[in-house]
């Protein structure tokens, strides 16, 4: 059991899986970094520090530094995965999904279905995402809703060091395509990580706190924010049942229903904008299947219907805060039933 930062967990997990299985390869922009430069290969080791040392260990045939060509990165990872490899593709910022959407949406997600179940494409597409770096509208978005909406993809959003290992190992060994979303602000987060083989099955939410008054559903950076809010709410006598959903596809509907049927109140925290979002999806699910259990309208704390702005003041106004989560929980608790 070692204490590691999430970025190191990612590198070490890929390392373990590449050592275990020769078919695992990795592709992406600057994942080696420094190719063709005076500084030489591994001058960078990945701009997120998630692939340092892997090229030296496994060579150019398995750790493939690519030109800036997202469509070709995903396409190449897809083609390799269709033909017997297990490719891990890195899209440097999740926002760049726009330039490779066809490969993800029309190709990777649909191969198996279109081909009558006679193919498999065990690809992992890693995408750093999220706000918090003042990286402005094209480098700060949370794109989980759009990929969750795509049948054929699995979508994973780890929040702890241990979960990162368990879920990434599962993702690499999974025979279906997996979108692995890494929140940029969590890369430096440290946590205990189990030694040896460690897998967490998908569709399995993590219970963060137990309480009886409000169910809070969160993903990514919002889990930590919600945990802070829950601690504050507990001081005020409000018990929060906080679930870190961990995967948005498949979704742990059972855990959500079990909790909401008990608490009768639901608060969803989502970093993304509110329309046609993961938050609205969860809200519809619960409104439809647990209407009878609800004691108050479903509350949603989300980003606004705007791009993620640049300036510090603007970005911090954009991102849901623990205070906003507390206020929404209090609102749910204050609902007057006529």
């Amino acid at each position, binding site marked *: 059991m070692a204490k590691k930062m999430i970025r190191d967990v990612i590198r070490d997990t890929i390392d373990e899986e590449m050592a275990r299985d020769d078919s695992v390869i990795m592709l992406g922009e600057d994942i080696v970094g420094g190719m063709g430069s005076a500084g030489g290969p591994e001058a960078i080791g990945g701009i997120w520090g998630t692939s340092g040392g892997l090229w030296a260990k496994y060579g150019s*045939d398995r750790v493939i530094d690519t030109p800036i060509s997202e469509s*070709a990165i995903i396409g190449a990872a897809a083609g390799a995965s*269709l033909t017997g490899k297990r490719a891990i593709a890195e899209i440097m910022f999740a926002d760049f999904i726009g330039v490779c959407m066809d490969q993800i949406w029309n190709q990777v997600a649909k191969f198996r279905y279109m*081909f009558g179940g006679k193919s498999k494409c065990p690809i992992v597409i890693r995408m750093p995402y999220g706000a918090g770096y003042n990286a402005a509208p094209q480098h700060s978005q949370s794109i989980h809703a759009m990929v969750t909406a795509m049948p054929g993809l699995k979508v994973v959003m780890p929040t702890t060091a241990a979960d990162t290992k368990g879920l990434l190992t599962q993702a690499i060994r999974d*025979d*279906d395509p997996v979108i692995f979303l890494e929140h940029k602000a969590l890369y430096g987060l440290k946590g205990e990580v189990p030694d040896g083989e460690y897998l967490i099955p998908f569709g399995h939410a993590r219970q963060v706190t137990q309480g009886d008054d409000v169910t809070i559903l969160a993903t990514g950076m919002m889990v930590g924010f919600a945990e802070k809010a829950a601690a504050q709410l507990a001081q005020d006598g409000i018990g929060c049942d906080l679930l870190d959903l961990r995967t948005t596809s498949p979704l742990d509907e059972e855990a959500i229903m079990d909790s909401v049927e008990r608490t009768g109140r639901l608060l969803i925290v989502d970093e993304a904008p509110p329309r046609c979002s993961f938050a609205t999806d969860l809200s519809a699910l619960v409104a439809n299947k647990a209407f009878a259990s609800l004691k108050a309208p479903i509350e949603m704390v989300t980003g606004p219907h705007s791009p993620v702005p640049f300036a510090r003041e603007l970005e911090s106004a954009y991102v849901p805060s623990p205070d906003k989560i507390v206020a929404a929980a209090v609102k749910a608790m204050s609902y007057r039933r006529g």
Partner: protein
Amino acid sequence: MQHSREALIQAYRQMKTIRAFEERLHDDIALGEIAGFTHLYAGQEACAVGVCEHLGPADYIISTHRGHGHCIAKGCDVVGMMKEIYGSSDGLCKGKGGSMHIADINKGMLGANGIVGAGAPIAVGAGITAKSTGNVSIAFSGDGACNQGTTFEAMNMAVVLKLPVIFVFENNHYSEHTGESYAVGAESMTVRSAAFGMKAIKANGIDFFSVYDAMRELIDYCKAGNGPASIELDTERFYGHFEGDPQRYRGKGELDRLREERDCLKVFRTKVTEAKLLEGKDIDAIDTEVEALIERAVAESKAAPRPTAAHVLEDVYISY
């Protein structure tokens, strides 16, 4: 290049199978037997067969929306393909893909593809695998897909990674309904491919022997570790972009002239009979055999089981 009698018969049988398959589809679609969009390959047979006669199951191809010819040439089961196009649950893709998505991974056929230009990047990935096994990966594209950024990205990446990928551009002179002379800005696809830093050649896409010989050269080149290559094949499309296309962009008498003067099957027959490699009756026998195969494929397709609503959720995931 020398060809055995068996090799010639096999090549002709493949080309004839494609032709008969497509002509039968043309008729059955007109009769309303088949749903959806279908893009016929007839006229380009020498390209698919001239490329694929070099390939084994560990060599990969990826195709286009006009993919039936590539599928047949790469060894996909013709009856299974017909059933698929008829939408049967017994089809090659269980009725989930249809004409535009026929694939058989075990045969090295990574799928026809409904998105123009989507195939080239995937062929690059198959090239990563092929490189590790000493095989090659082929991206079939047309004069339409050649203008997609994905194709450019794929060509550049294949050069950067020195992958054994051959970009085969079948120039049938129409990207959908637009002429090649308008849409391809460069002097030619060959010139453009060369500019990416790869070996780029041209061949006659209505002559099996021209395609076959050129491909031999390129495959040897790629397998020697020289990185990717490109070939532009000058060929013809005998039907519209899709079945139902009124083809008002064609010149007067254009199709009749093409079928008379630029039919790759006629070219093949003339060449092999004049060179006394095969006799006319050998060829006629193949025609009869192929017509029977297609007839059987259609009969079986019409009798084949239909999918039900219960099949909709199958094969979205391996496990979910």
